[in-house]
């Protein structure tokens, strides 16, 4: 049992937030870094005196990549621990599993990872990208003269909801741009798939005329065998570039980059961004990891989800200050249209829904595991939780409507 006992005594000086990232199991590979980023933001804010005069007290739990446990932990954080906000989740399924909990208990979840859209919850602040902030610009770039003028697309992903929805949107987009159906192949592999020999053979044939590229939503530990096999069968970024949507700097740490050089990825943030804010952020993060004795120490890198996990905490803090309260609905209202100078430059919450407007960048992998930024959007790209390509009739608006509504 978890009886609330001494909470009231300390509540005067501290405010609790929940950190709900998997520290074990298959997703730990990605989520541990987000816990670190959140912890760093909290430490920084606390060092500067906290929020509304209160120190932030993070309650870290390990949902262990177990979706049911995500729901259980979410309840525990909201009901038993009474946290003011939760920072967590990576996979869409984990977000879906906690969503009802947050909605029923009036919680607030800051979700830092790119996702498939088609969601518009009042209880989630989506700091990651919507499809139009990542997928569409990437496809557009590849079709452009500068991007190589590719005419054939191999949509390859791990079999779960993000890749499936992403590819649905991508396919709709490509078709709308006049790419014939037979030039688009869609294929999925199971989680943890390790053997890409057959698929790469297919790709090789598909790409024989030099007009094909891969749009990859392959997730996690399948990427290493995928890229290695790709190179081994004599393919390269020159003959058939891979545009990845789930490979960031943190994943590249685990890969032998030799095989990856020249391939592409689309995100909203890269560590190589040379804004001074970012330089400081990167240096701080390395110092933080080294100081805390975290594995990797000062060799750690930042990437898109880390940046948004970190920014999420600041957004929340700024909104709380603006609202003058930690009350969920007040914070939420304060968040509409709020801007914040993130490591990625000034970003802005949408004035009507819970997504973030931010720049889109495409990078080319360098031998050192960093990205060379080869394309950047003009200014901030507004979020579209409902893709006009697949749900032209829907939009998300919590100010004038009650969430998702039908557009005329």
């Amino acid at each position, binding site marked *: 049992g978890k009886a609330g006992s001494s909470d009231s005594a300390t509540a005067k000086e501290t405010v609790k937030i929940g950190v709900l990232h998997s520290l074990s199991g298959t997703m730990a590979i990605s989520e541990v870094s987000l816990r670190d980023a959140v912890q760093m933001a909290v430490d920084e804010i606390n060092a500067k005196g906290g929020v509304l005069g209160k120190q932030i007290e993070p309650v870290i739990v390990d949902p262990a990549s177990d979706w049911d446990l995500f729901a259980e932990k979410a309840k525990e954080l909201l009901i038993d621990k009474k946290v003011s906000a939760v920072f967590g989740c990576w996979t869409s399924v984990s977000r879906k599993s906690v969503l009802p909990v947050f909605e029923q208990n009036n919680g607030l979840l800051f979700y830092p990872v790119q996702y498939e859209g088609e969601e518009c919850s009042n209880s989630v602040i989506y700091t990651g990208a919507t499809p139009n902030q990542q997928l569409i610009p990437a496809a557009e770039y590849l079709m452009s003269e500068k991007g190589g003028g590719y005419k054939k697309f191999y949509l390859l992903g791990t079999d779960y909801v993000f890749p499936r929805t992403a590819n649905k949107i991508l396919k709709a987009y490509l078709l709308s741009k006049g790419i014939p159906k037979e030039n688009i192949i869609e294929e999925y592999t*199971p989680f943890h798939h390790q053997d890409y020999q057959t698929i790469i053979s297919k790709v090789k044939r598909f790409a024989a005329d*030099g007009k094909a590229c891969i749009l990859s939503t392959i997730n996690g530990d399948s990427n290493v065998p995928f890229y290695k096999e790709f190179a081994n*069968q004599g393919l390269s970024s*020159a003959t058939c570039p891979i545009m990845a949507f789930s490979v960031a700097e943190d994943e590249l740490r685990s890969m032998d980059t030799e095989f990856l050089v020249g391939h592409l990825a689309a995100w909203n943030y890269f560590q190589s961004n040379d804004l001074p804010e970012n330089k400081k952020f990167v240096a701080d993060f390395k110092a933080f990891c080294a100081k805390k004795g975290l594995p*990797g120490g000062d060799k750690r890198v930042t990437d898109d989800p880390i940046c948004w996990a970190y920014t999420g905490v600041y957004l929340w803090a700024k909104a709380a200050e603006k609202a003058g309260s930690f009350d969920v609905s007040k914070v939420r209202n304060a968040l509409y249209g709020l801007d914040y100078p993130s490591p990625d430059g000034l970003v802005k919450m949408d004035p009507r829904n819970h997504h973030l407007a931010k720049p889109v960048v495409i990078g080319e992998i360098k*031998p050192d595991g960093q990205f060379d930024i080869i394309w950047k959007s003009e200014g901030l790209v507004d979020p579209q939780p409902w893709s006009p390509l697949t749900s032209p009739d829907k939009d998300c608006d919590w100010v004038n409507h009650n969430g998702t509504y039908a557009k005329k």
Partner: protein
Amino acid sequence: MLMCCLLLLPLKVAAQDSASIYTAQLLQPPNDSVRTQAIGRLAALRIPATFPLLIAINDKKLYLLDHKAVTVDSKPTGEGTYRLYSLYPDNILLTNSSGQPLLLPLSALQTVDIPRADRLQLAGIAPLLNLFSNDAQKRILAYTQLKNTGDSATLSILQAALAKESNADARRTGKDVLYAARLYSATSTAAAKAYIDSIGDNWSDNAPVLLRNYAKAGFLNQETAHYAAAQAISLEKRYDSLQRIQNFFSGLSLGSILILIALGLSIVYGLAGIINMAHGEFMMIGAYTTYCTQVFFTHTLGIPQTDLFFLAALPLSFMIAGAMGWILERLVIRHLYAKPLESLLATWGVSLILIQTARLLFGDLTAVKTPQLLSGGWQVSPHLTLPYNRIFIIVLTLLMVVFTYLMLYRSRLGLQIRAVTQNRQMSACLGIETRRVASITFFIGSGLAGLAGCAITLIGNVVPDMGQTYIVDSFLVVVTGGVGKLAGTIFSGLGIGFFTKISESFFQAVYGKVFILVFIMLFMQYKPKGLFPDKGRVAED
């Protein structure tokens, strides 16, 4: 053709002069607009000698070394150093005083920043530029992009590039373009057929597409069109049969991996009767040993030669995983021989502990570099490449199978192991030191897992829970083969490997996997005790 070149000569000399001027302007521009103009001019001139320089600009790999324009090799040589090439007027590998290639890190060079807008001027001639790239892949791509060109200036540049083409694939692709150009301009049926044949003989990746297009366009007459179409079909047939070989190889390679992983499990489980849920974690230990060896070699010893570490890692991963297995046996398993079920629980617990330990020690992400010798592949024929790393794993598996066979069936130790696992008490009464034998069995079984882990780094990840990815597969192999049957493990490993590959060519990977699982279930209906069941009384429970 020679005539043509001679005629162009005076013009060329003049152009060369201006090229030098522009090049100088480009490197030391008095202002930005001069540089922009210089690049534009150079692009317009299309002088092959300037191409390396332009490529360097386009690829953002233009550097200055002692005020001379240089570029770097596409791949780093070992620890962050690169080979350097001069760019203009000649494009050669730079050497140091002793004639060895000059190796420098990027930090020793001065970067030349050419703004994006300037670089965009080169986009139009990018394929031409890339014909002279140092990267064979880029050249291949360039040839492909030039495919339908009819313009003679481009053709002559193409010929110049082909003349010094060193890569077989690239030459094939390049020749295709030439043949195609001639095919399209051929005026007699015989000539066209001759070119079609040449394309067929040359057989680049692109050839079928090229022939198809020609056939569709029907350039000369119906007959040549048919001829081209037939040629395309025959090429594709040949390609398909090579593809079958490739598929067979894929199956063999997947099977080898399965066998390699299952071998240790087969010994520990099939022979010692211990359901070792931590088997995958011993693999993980082997993989991390490989990682640590690499770090030790490159960082501590400072040996840039990347291959050496792998040689050391092979025996080391065997020894370290083996030693861990030995310790596990001593501390835990030893007390559980009478209770095989409990061993399942205990080893599960141990696997949790090992995973978390790895996570705390290494974090979640680590990289093992593939040794240079094992990257790339053996080009058996133009369209059949067998990756070295997979060949290596096949050979390693073969060696380990032979080793295991000799150890188990041709040595005194093997006899002891088999006796102890079948009847511990009686073996002791016969004078066998059962505890020692059990420890050694575990050592070898875990060591083999470690070795498998080391080999897996060539194709997959090193993460704390990597073992979990393989544990079910390896149990499937061991059990399908029949518990305790070395031959069974080998046959079922290969069988599952081949079947997976066959099913993947019909179904998507996910359904392929489902298909294999269903197939195994049906197979067990027919062979409920695996491929090689014991016969007769021995088999009774």
